């Protein structure tokens, strides 16, 4: 679906543990449901009615989008934009541009190992939901890491869908103690030993993505990384969100070529 710019109104702002919020919006009815066909990993640019001092919209992955035009995002207060959004009350208005970028493809043959770290959850949560809706909940497995148990959110839904989830927390308060990549490493070793076809889809903090990339390359499994870069426009014009890549050109763009990139392509040291 081509992107458009439309107005949306906050329906519900739910504070979760760990400083996270889910914001659910309804699109301006005149606009239909511009996000209902969104692919997990695609994103939107969101701007509130907060004047010009914060000039640019903020990029968010979509957590969920319904055919009725409603959609939701997961936020954690990180700077002034997310602080302003977290304070939005039902009826509050935002301007949205999207859907933008290219997302993950649905599971085909290989089991998809969905690796989520912190606020990188939404694309993988939506991927799991879509797989469940397609009757393929068994085609995905989630690896979800955070600092502590409070840093893991929206887990009930994953469990209701019957998706297998491995949790990891740095303090051991839920699931494995340590980084989620340790659990992923074990899973990749087991797959290699049994000859099982797997692929890795990951979104989270850059250190996690770097580790996932290294593992995916070492195990020679298809590894897709959903990246985040500072962007002003989100649709390929400002050229601010360059991603260093291998190939005929040194850069691609997070917003229009990504945000999902093959780990082999990304030029990281």
């Amino acid at each position, binding site marked *: 679906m081509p992107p458009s*710019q439309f107005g949306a109104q906050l329906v519900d702002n739910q504070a979760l543990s760990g400083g996270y919020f889910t914001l659910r919006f309804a699109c301006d009815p005149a606009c239909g449901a511009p996000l209902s066909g969104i692919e997990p990993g695609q994103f939107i640019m969101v701007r509130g009615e907060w004047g*010009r001092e914060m000039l640019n919209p903020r990029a968010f992955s979509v957590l969920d989008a319904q055919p009725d035009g409603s959609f939701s995002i997961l936020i954690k207060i990180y700077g002034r934009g997310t602080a302003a959004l977290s304070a939005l009350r039902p009826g509050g208005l935002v301007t949205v541009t999207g859907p933008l970028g290219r997302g993950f493809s649905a599971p085909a043959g290989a089991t998809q190992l969905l690796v989520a770290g912190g606020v990188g959850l939404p694309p993988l949560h939506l991927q799991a939901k879509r797989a469940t809706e397609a009757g393929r909940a068994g085609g995905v497995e989630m690896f979800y890491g955070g600092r502590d148990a409070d840093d893991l959110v929206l887990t009930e839904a994953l469990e209701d869908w019957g998706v297998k989830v491995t949790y990891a927390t740095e303090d051991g308060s839920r699931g494995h103690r340590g980084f989620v990549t340790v659990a992923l490493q074990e899973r990749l070793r087991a797959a290699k030993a049994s000859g099982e076809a797997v692929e890795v889809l990951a979104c989270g903090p850059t250190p996690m993505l770097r580790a996932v990339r290294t593992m995916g390359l070492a195990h020679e499994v298809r590894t897709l990384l959903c990246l985040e870069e500072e962007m*002003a*426009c989100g649709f390929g014009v400002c050229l601010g969100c360059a991603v260093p890549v291998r190939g005929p050109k040194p850069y691609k763009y997070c917003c229009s070529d990504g945000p999902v990139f093959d780990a082999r392509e990304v030029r990281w040291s």
Partner: protein
Amino acid sequence: MSAPVRTTPISPDAVDLTTTFAGLSLPHPMMTASGCFAYGQQFAHFMDVSQLAGLSTKGISPAPRMGNPLPRICETASGMINSIGLENVGAEAFLAEKLPYLADLDVSVWVNFFGEDADAYVRCAEMLSAGAERGIDVLEMNISCPNIKKGGIEFGTVPEVAHRLTKRCVEATSLPIVVKLTPNAADVPAMAQAVHEAGAVGVSLINTITAMGIDVRTRKPRVATMYGGLSGPAVKPVALRMVHQIHTKHPDIPICGMGGIVSGEDALEFLMAGASCLQVGTANFSEPPAGLRIRDELRALMAELGISNIPEIVGCIGRHDPEPPYAPEESWT
């Protein structure tokens, strides 16, 4: 202090937004600015691009350029700093792949161009001349980008150097040349005069203001090249001052004004300062059809203020009434 000019509101339908810039007739003043509109196609999702008066492309160099390392942008108060590095497809690919789309639009097509040295500027002007019959209306010569090295700064800051470069490019092409000026020059009116005398049909300004942001947590600059170019509403007062200075000193030089325009009132300020057409840049990022909204706001504001046409107000800024003279006296209380 001066009282508002007494005006009688008129109907928005009675407002004539047509304007002329260096012999070009435009249906209204609103264009989009270089580097903030790519090569136009992306905007077709969001607006009827042909409704704009014109557009200026991403800056084109003779050969493709790959751009700067990350990070390239950061937001600042009412603005943003960029250091993209003049990434572009190069003149040849521009003519073959990007120009056909632009030529089909019913807008004035300005191709922004630059070179890494004087010969490259001339070569680029020559190469782009092939587009004269294929949709290019104006070459906008960028002597002002802060993001290239190799002595590029002198083209934009030393009047004699700018004069020589402009003259060579004017002689190299049949297309009219508008020179885009930098605010990072000591005497901007002298720069405008120098390029106009060299044959530029007009000037556009301002480009971005050299700027810096610092991340105190990492102790790193917020763009990888240390300094970048500031744009957005934060630069508007500086831009207005420079437009006004040029218009006051050289009223015969056509000016395309830009710098943080986000509203119809901003647009009217630039016209009153002395610009006869305008470009919208950074606002396109958050609001792709910003130029069209601003056009509509400009019409409504002109109607409210009883201004029926653009030439009536270009460069209309007067001085405040003088105060009565002061002489020391005994206290009167």
